């Protein structure tokens, strides 16, 4: 039994450890370790194509995470006010949204967007006052939309749990003390749910930053970091890619740890 558990963990983590190890390889090989060096990190950071993809990824992750947090928090607050049956329905839909596989979301979003563009583009061309009407197409917008929608469900789940533990008491107390709903939100609710909101932001950001599958379907001609990595691996695994993967791994782990810390603090208080 013990041996089996050890084997499972080895199977899970050994490849990751190898990636990290070989990112420090002095030589070119991805199978033979010839000495310790951080050169590949420098190479990676000065690769223009790679840095472009990274910038795209950061932009998309930040934008979609902000959208997810704003709308996810609003959704969580709105769900609180629903009756028991409607709430159960939406809880179920939320949980379902989170377990839908990325491939399905990718294809569904792609199909939906393409059909939408087919309808909108001729309309836009007809209404446009100038000569060249802008054409809606896949790109940053579509990735942000797909990521934002998916991670919004995540944020809603996290914030909803926090709101539920708040109780209606202090909200009513605030309103009893002459505070308008807006003031109550700003002064009482927001400070209380802020850790959950931040945790939601970090998780949404990490998800978007790491996502390959959904982005692959809806990216159009744009390249995100995971897409770039995927493309370059076809030309062979280099220590440079290992260095990039290690940095992505490090950043993701850090953010998830912070998110976990933020979510834990709320339950112990």
């Amino acid at each position, binding site marked *: 039994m013990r041996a089996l558990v050890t084997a499972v963990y080895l199977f899970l983590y050994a490849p990751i450890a190898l990636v990290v190890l070989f990112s420090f390889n002095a030589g070119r090989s991805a199978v033979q370790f010839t000495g310790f060096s951080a050169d590949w990190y420098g190479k990676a950071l000065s690769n223009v194509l790679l840095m472009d993809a990274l910038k795209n990824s950061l932009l998309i992750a930040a934008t979609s995470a902000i959208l997810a947090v704003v709308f996810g928090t609003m959704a969580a607050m709105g769900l609180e006010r629903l009756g028991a049956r409607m709430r159960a329905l939406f809880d179920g839909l939320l949980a379902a949204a989170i377990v839908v596989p990325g491939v399905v979301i990718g294809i569904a979003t792609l199909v939906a967007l393409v059909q939408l563009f087919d309808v909108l583009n001729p309309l836009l061309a007809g209404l446009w006052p100038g000569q060249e009407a802008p054409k809606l197409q896949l790109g940053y917008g579509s990735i942000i939309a797909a990521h934002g929608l998916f991670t919004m469900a995540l944020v809603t789940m996290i914030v909803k749990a926090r709101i539920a533990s708040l109780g209606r*008491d202090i909200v009513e*107390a605030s*309103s009893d003390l*002459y505070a308008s709903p807006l003031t109550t939100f700003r002064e009482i609710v927001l400070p209380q749910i802020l850790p959950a909101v931040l945790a939601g932001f970090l998780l949404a950001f990490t998800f978007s930053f790491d996502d390959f599958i959904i982005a692959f379907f809806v990216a159009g001609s744009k390249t995100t970091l995971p897409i770039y990595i995927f493309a370059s691996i076809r030309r062979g695994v280099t220590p440079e890619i290992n260095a990039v993967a290690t940095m992505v791994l490090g950043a993701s782990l850090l953010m998830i740890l912070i998110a976990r810390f933020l979510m834990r603090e709320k339950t112990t208080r």
Partner: protein
Amino acid sequence: MALTSSNDIEFRSVTKKYGALTAVSDINLSISKGAFLALLGPSGCGKTTCLRMIGGFEQPSEGTIHIAGREMNGVAAYHRPVNMVFQHYALFPHFNVEQNVAYGLRQMRPRLSRAEISRRVGEALAMVRLDGFAGRRIHEMSGGQQQRVALARAIVNRPSVLLLDEPLAALDKKLRTAMQIELQTLQRELGITFVLVTHDQEEALSMADTVCVMSAGRIRQLGAPQEIYDRPADLFVADFVGKTNRIEAVAEAGGTVLRLADGSAMSSSAHSTGGGAGVPNGKVTIAIRPEKMRMSRAAAPGPAFKGRVTHRIFLGSVTEYAVAVPGLGDFLVTEDRNGLATDNMVSPGEEVFLGFPPEAAHVFPVQQP
């Protein structure tokens, strides 16, 4: 009903339904300015719902509520001149004591100056004897102290009505008694109308000047504490407020004769019949307070039952006896220390006679199903 300016709160035919459940049913109630009213009743009878409708957290399904002469239906909680002390205090955990108390003042428009706010917060904290605690965090305060913060946070706004939902329920008995006295003093000093919700009849009787006994969403009796205790309007009130001995009987001869289960009869004419109305023929219940019962070793004149003492409970200032009377059941008798000298107390197993003054017996017709 004419609206008079001396009424702070009026319920006019107020009904509140939650789906199929009627929590409050056709309540009419006027609370005059400066009154200390207690809403008393068992758990689930609709007390909190009434309070929450005054506070603006629930809207009546039917009828209207008026505060200071103004109809309040549809008026949001934050526009009402009332403040509430919540059962679990509902203090803001991320604010300290001072920030909690200042919260209502900060929302007031036109804005109050900082100096004014801090002066009034200081005053309120002094009033609840929490001076020196301004900078404390809420979770560093004991339950009793949190209770006072909640109180200060409400009275600092000088509302015309203060609503209190079982404010003392979470405190231990000693602290509760102390707070009862403090609340009463505070109410007199401030002249604010207090509406207190409680299921504790002792608390209601000792603190309020008017008690409103509720059951199943309806008002059963409204009156001064003494009136409620001495002249309960029905059997429910007699049972719920204080302790009561019940004797089942049948009214005969137009309600002038009461035949008891053991076959004996007593004359009803002298007995108070709930609300003053005579009792019709039929089943009745006679209610007598334990402290109105007289216990003696020898038969005394007047109605009397012969029984045997089964238990004696010494409570300090008074002693309670349980007396089993054949054919009529168990009776509870309270004797104060003057009644029987300590060295001459009746012991369990002794045979005694129970008597009572006729006016202490309340006769209520039993509702036929």
